[in-house]
Structure formats: C-alpha cells, structure tokens
C-alpha cells in the first residue's frame, strides 16, 4: 500500500477493562466504538466502513446505526484487527469508503453473550487433535516450545524472564490488571498449567474492547487528534492445526507478514522506536523478535535477558504490560494496536520518549495467522 496515505484518527478502549459483568459482547464493541468516535469528534452517521471480528460486521452496523459502503468480517483470531487495518487502508485508498470503524469487544471473563466456538468433531482439528486432550490455547499454543527450547538451548528461566520484564512495564500502567513486581523464581513456582508453562507465563482472561477509526491522511488533518500514519502492513495465514505447523521453532505467518510490512514501510530494524508483539504466552515475544528479524534465530531469549526490551532498553516492547499483565480478553491484537497508537500520539502511560516508528505484530489462533502494522507519527 502507499505509505502514509491513511491514518488512525480515533482510538479508544472500553471505559472499563477487567471484569465487566454488566456488559454483553456486542455492547463492549459499542462502548469502545462510541469512545473512539468521541475521541475524534464523529457520530455513527459519519462512518461508512466497518470491520470487526468476534461479532459480524452486519451486527455491528445495525447495533450502532451505521450504513456502510464497505464491510470486512475477516476473523483469523486475535490479529484480525491488524488485518482490518491493512484492508481498511486499501479500501480507503481505493475510495470504497472514507471513514472506517474497526471494533473489538469480548466478554472473555464474564462470558456475557459471547460468540460460541464449538469444536466440530468432523473438522480436521476435531478429528486429528481434539481426541488427544487439547483443551484451549494453553494446551495448543505451547506445544512447539519444547522443540524450540531443545533446538536453541533455551531454559525455562529464560522464558520466565519475558513475564518478569513485561510486569515491569505493567507497573507503570494504571489500567494494567497486574502491577506487582515478580521474579523469575515467582514465575517458576507459580501453578503449573501445561508443562513447561506455568500460570505466570500465560495471558490473563478479562473483559474489554477497543476501537480504531481510520481515514485518508489528507482528511486526517481536519481531526482534533494527532494523526498516526500507516507506514507499512503485512498479513499471512498458516493453518489452524498446531500439530501441522511447518517449523516448530519459527512461525511462517510471522515471517511472511513481518517481511511484507517492513518492505512496504521501507525501514530498517534500527529505525524502530517501539514494538508490540502479541503475547498470549511468554514464548511469543521470542518467536516474534526472531521472525520479524530483530535478532537471529535462537537469540531472542538472551536479547530479552539483557533487558533490551525492558524499561530503558534500546527496543521497548509490550509497553502496556502485554497480554501477560495488562489485559487479554481473547483477541488481544486490538490492545496492542491501541498501545502503538498511544505511543505514536505521545500519551502512553509508559511513554517511549521521542518515539517516531512503532511496529505492532499480532498472532491469530495458535500460530494460525499473523498481521503486522507499522505506524509513524511523522507525515514527512
């Protein structure tokens, strides 16, 4: 896509994050959408493009009173919103619509009117994975890690360090669910979920939502908010069965999506001031750092251990505390995007000083899909 031709002009999360038993899934979408519209001074009648996952776009349009000329229901899991940003940018450039609303809302904890996700026993995953006792993401997303650890000589302590560093970031964020400091020893004595994963290596389960509003860079000048430009985008999918992941030590979808985004943006890794890597589990920043090309294969754990992604490090990563400590409603990609936008606007609780380029990398399913958005706050 054309660099900086489209900008985020509205961005907001739900009024509350955490446990919200008084709100259904669709209302979480609406709460975030209304906050994002207020952020940039728009009404539902000003929106002519909608994209969402979890809910379908027609449900969102009717509930909010929007009549779109463009709709996108791409639902590839937690990075769906990165794909929506990418598709919306293309749609705006192609003049299919002018102002796009992208929403996420999920009653992950309270389970008020969620979209059912039944296991289908005649699907391939239902036939060839479900009979072996996989039971939710902690038993699937984690399966490749023993191979990764053996290949690169990575220890449980090194994986635990990911959680420790992100908790340090969360401590600076008033909206983070968990803010108390933790040590590697704390992580390694926390409750076992699925060896080698303990609960402090797994994301939270909370309620919440978020919304983004995008328009052309040309129109963005007329909004009250500081425009956050789309510099580069990437996406890919691999497949829904973790057992069939091509390489257990590296995500093909990450590599394809990341390279596409960096090529589009025309930047070097050393140009990146701020990074978000969707962390449903503590190994994801390791795969992300390597597959995006910030470090060589097998070097990410040492990179994090040397505090390069921590407060004061050269590559601040997951500065909201991440899915491990900030919040995680199920499809966390929206919150990673929100933090990138805050950093580019200069209003993040743990603001990276003078940050000009932010890379936001998402995963969907269990390494099933990926989307990467590179933001810039400079028009020139």
């Amino acid at each position: 896509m054309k660099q900086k031709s489209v900008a985020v002009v509205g961005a907001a999360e739900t009024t509350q994050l955490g446990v919200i038993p008084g709100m259904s899934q669709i209302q979480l979408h609406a709460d975030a959408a209304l906050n994002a519209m207020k952020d940039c001074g728009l009404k539902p009648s000003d929106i002519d493009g909608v994209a969402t996952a979890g809910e379908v776009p027609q449900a969102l349009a009717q509930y909010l009173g929007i009549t779109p000329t463009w709709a996108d229901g791409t639902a590839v899991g937690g990075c769906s919103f990165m794909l929506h940003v990418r598709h919306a940018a293309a749609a705006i450039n192609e003049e299919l619509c002018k102002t796009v609303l992208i929403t996420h809302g999920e009653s992950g904890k309270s389970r008020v009117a969620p979209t059912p996700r039944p296991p289908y026993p005649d699907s391939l995953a239902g036939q060839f994975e479900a009979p072996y006792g996989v039971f939710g993401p902690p038993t699937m997303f984690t399966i490749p890690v023993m191979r990764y650890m053996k290949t690169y000589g990575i220890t449980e302590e090194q994986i635990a360090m990911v959680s420790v560093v992100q908790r340090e970031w969360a401590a600076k964020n008033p909206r983070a669910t968990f803010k108390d400091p933790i040590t590697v020893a704390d992580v390694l004595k926390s409750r076992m979920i699925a060896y080698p994963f303990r609960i402090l290596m797994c994301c939270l389960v909370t309620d919440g939502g978020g919304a983004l509003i995008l328009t052309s860079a040309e129109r963005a000048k007329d909004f009250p908010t500081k425009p956050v430009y789309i510099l580069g985008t990437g996406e890919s999918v691999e497949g829904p069965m973790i057992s069939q992941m091509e390489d257990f030590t590296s995500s093909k979808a990450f590599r394809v999506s990341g390279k596409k985004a960096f090529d589009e943006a025309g930047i070097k890794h050393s140009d990146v001031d701020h990074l978000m890597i969707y962390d449903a589990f503590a190994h994801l920043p390791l795969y992300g750092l390597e597959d995006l090309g910030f470090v060589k294969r097998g070097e990410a754990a040492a990179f994090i251990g040397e505090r390069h992604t921590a407060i004061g490090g050269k590559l601040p990563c997951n500065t909201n505390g991440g899915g491990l400590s900030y919040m995680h409603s199920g499809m966390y990609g929206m919150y990673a995007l929100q933090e990138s936008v805050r950093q580019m606007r200069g209003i993040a609780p743990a603001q990276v000083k003078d940050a000009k380029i932010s890379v936001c990398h998402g995963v969907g399913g269990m390494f099933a899909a990926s989307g990467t958005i590179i933001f810039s706050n400079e028009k020139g």
Partner: protein
Amino acid sequence: MAEGKRPLPKPTPETQHYWEGAKAGELRLQTCNDCSKTYFPPRPFCPKCGSRSVKVVKASGKAKLFSYVIHARPAPGFDPPYAIAVVELAEGPRMMTNIVGCPQTPEALKLDMDLEVTFEAQNDAISLPFFKPAGK
C-alpha cells in the same frame, strides 16, 4: 477417574480410509503418485503439487517424539497430568497423539526418543492411534 468423555472424531468422506485403517490396526498415510510426497492429514490430492493422483499407504508405525506439553488441568476424558504430544513419523509427516506406556513426566518424555504406534478402540467404529516407547 477421568470425568466426561474424550472427544472422538467424526470421519468425513476424505478421512474414512484413515479411520478404517486405525480400526484395523494400521496407520495409513497418503503418497502422491506424481511427486512422491507422503502427507498427513488425509485429503484426496497432494498438498505439495496439487495432483489428484494419490494412493493410501501403510505407515511403518515408527516415530520420534517431536514436542509436547504435559497438561496439568482436568479435561473431559483425561486424568491430569497427561502429555499431549506431536510425533514425527519415519515417513516424514507429523501428527498429534498421546504417549502411552510411560510416566507422563519430563524425565520420561525425552525429545527424539523412539516411539511406535499402538491402537486403542474407543467404540465399535473408532480406534485412536497412540504411541509408546519403542520396544516396550
């Protein structure tokens, strides 16, 4: 004792031969007649070259432990802790399975250990392939 029931597969026309094989004590894969690729899970064409000319082949049943987790929490039909494993078959493809005939511990479950297939009937129609340490 495990509560609930282990989820069981519902075969489709494309996977019927696999489940019939499992019931007969055979692990069945498919091989492309054009490019010789052996693949899993079942489908009536080659995922490498797209050819519809494929044949069903009987696998050796030999495999190595490729990766796993040991689930510590209850799941329908399982007594925790139990390992959910991916094995690499001698023929190349990988598949998910459970490891039987050995303790469900990191000490007993060593990556790259030699395994062999064994089948357990779940009902009249469905037998599931599991893997056990080779030679046991």
